[in-house]
């Protein structure tokens, strides 16, 4: 310590060189420039449309597409929307939640197998997970319609096994819609789960076993908590689009399985009721936002947001 303490004193014996006048540190603007393109894009294609949506939801419901609408701060649109359409809204949340839960179970097992057990097949299996994206969402859902059709082999088999009655069917049932949702959004669950599980050091699992944890206990004490970031992002990536989805209900369901996406689409394109459609859209957004915030807070993974 003494050496370091005396050194500055010793070196200061000759007049210390005056430090060159420090340049005013220029603020580094690079970060802001990098933000600019994305921010502009969002401003033009998100903020402006969102403003217009919000405004539409408050238009005078007396107007029409042809005659135009007046801005009348008609908060009553929201009341109408809830009174008329609470059923499809609740149904959407319910279908979305069930589909997400099924995706989580199927996806976790799959991601775990790919990360820990696939060995040299890992990359092939990952490609197979994203392979469905090579075909359009719409085309794939249409093929599910063929798959589940009344005299198709799935229905025939289920009827043979007496899971379905003689005149039972799958199309136009919640089962078909949820199955479609699960199928379409499973990759969004698997990929974040895989990324999380793959990062877990297998020696931690060994250490848990070495410390008297049976495989089952070791999973819930070590693997599961360490994969939580993947669970949270996977469920969000599945739940959010699943709730707003309308293709699956449209193609695989009937009016009895109408989800909120179908209602909004119908109000916009067929009924031409812009204000209520806008009100429903805004409500759906806020509802999902609140649910996500509560969920992330409960899961203790705020750092994801």
């Amino acid at each position, binding site marked *: 310590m003494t050496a370091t303490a005396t050194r500055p004193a010793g070196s200061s014996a000759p007049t210390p060189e005056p430090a060159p006048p420090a340049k005013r540190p220029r603020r580094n603007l690079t970060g802001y420039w990098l933000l600019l393109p994305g921010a502009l894009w969002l401003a033009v294609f998100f903020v402006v449309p969102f403003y217009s949506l919000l405004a539409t939801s408050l238009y005078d419901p007396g107007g029409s597409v042809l005659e135009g609408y007046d801005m009348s701060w008609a908060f009553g649109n929201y009341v109408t929307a809830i009174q008329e359409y609470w059923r499809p809204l609740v149904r959407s949340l319910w279908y979305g939640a069930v589909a997400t839960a099924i995706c989580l179970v199927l996806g976790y097992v799959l991601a775990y197998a790919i990360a820990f057990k696939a060995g040299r097949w890992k990359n092939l299996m990952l490609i197979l997970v994203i392979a469905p994206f090579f075909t359009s969402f719409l085309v794939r859902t249409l093929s599910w319609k063929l798959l589940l059709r009344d005299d198709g082999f799935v229905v025939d088999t289920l009827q043979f096994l007496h899971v379905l009655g003689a005149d039972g069917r799958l199309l136009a049932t919640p089962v078909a819609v949820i199955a479609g949702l699960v199928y379409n959004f499973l990759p969004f669950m698997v990929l974040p789960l895989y990324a999380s599980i793959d990062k877990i*050091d297998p*020696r*931690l699992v*060994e*250490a*848990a*076993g*070495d*410390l*008297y*944890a*049976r495989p089952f*206990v*070791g999973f819930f*004490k*070590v693997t599961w*908590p*360490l994969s939580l970031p993947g669970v949270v992002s996977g469920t969000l990536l599945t739940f959010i689009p699943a709730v707003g989805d309308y293709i699956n209900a449209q193609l695989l369901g009937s009016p009895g399985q109408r989800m909120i996406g179908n209602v909004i689409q119908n109000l916009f394109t067929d009924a031409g009721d812009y204000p209520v459609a806008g009100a429903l859209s805004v409500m759906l957004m806020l509802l999902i936002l609140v649910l996500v915030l509560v969920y992330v807070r409960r899961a203790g993974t705020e750092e994801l947001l």
Partner: protein
Amino acid sequence: MSQVVEAPTAGAGDDRGTGGRTGGGLHLRSLTKEFASFTAVKSLDLDIPSGSFFALLGPSGCGKTTTLRMVAGLETPTSGTITLGERDITWEKPYRRPVNTVFQNYALFPHLDIFENVAFGLRRRKRSDVKPAVEQMLALVELESQARKKPAQLSGGQQQRVALARALINNPEVLLLDEPLGALDLKLRRSMQIEIKRIQTEVGLTFVHVTHDQEEAMTMADTVAVMNAGVIEQMGAPAELYENPRTTFVANFLGQSNLIEGTVAGREGDVVKVDMQGTVVSVPSARAHLETTAGHRAWVGIRPEKVLIAEVGEVIDAPGNSIPGGVISDVSFVGVSTQYLVRMPWGQELQVFEQNTGRRRLFRTGESVDVSWRPDYAFLLDHEQDASAGTDRSDLPS
């Protein structure tokens, strides 16, 4: 410190049968592990007495870690048995074995704080009094103040001690340490060696320590087994292994050795006479690890610090084995000692370490010297063995 002697037992109790610990030590019998393309461990027999500090020393890939993992239950033996006292644990699941491991790179649970990491084993076995036991254990490794931190917030040395505490608190019959100090820098490694040795003495458990660092093995362990290519080359107390190696691998892997080619001339009592490049030297027959019939080719081995050098013609205190005609070819001054390379008349360069006692001047490159050593220090190895076995230390951290 005396009260912490009981730390690991407090609260840990003992649920391994009414008899408590078996006290019979760890026994491996013809233990073999074959992987798809090679045999990692070949018919290993090993007896590790209860309460000892045992080191498995060898270069990377020699099978020492595989052996350890089989004892921990993380690897299934191809054949052979592992017994702990009277109990055969060969096929026991890892979570049922009274064995705990300090993993290489520690494998601390990153999502749990230090307290919960240490408490993990006790909680799995539904122990009561977890808190006092963990606190005592953290006191033993001097980490009481860090209990609520996450592993990532700790330094390497502290993480190492958490890993030790997490295993020790379970009061295992055998504690396995897999290269526990490999990730630490040299200074920290030295102090942790002393620390772990102290803890072992205090808790009195059986420690099995796997390492490739010969100095670490010799400093810490009571018994060292030198392992090479899946088999144990030699086993014994560190000084015994160092002073009387049985194979060229041990002679080179544990410290350094000069191995000089020679031919057995015959036996005289309990001394073997060897014609070593024209000079007859003697080696005690207890240190001759080959058949000592005349005409047999051999390696005469001598440790560099046992070799004395002197001015030509000077009388050296080493009756018997004196060889003239050396020329100093290199001098490295290391501080505590000077390391010379001496070129001998037959072309070989011998290593000589001389303590810097100040009683003698330093030799310079090119000077002629006589070389000698006391016959008691020499050893004789089979010429069939490769004289360079165990010299490749490139895999070791400097």
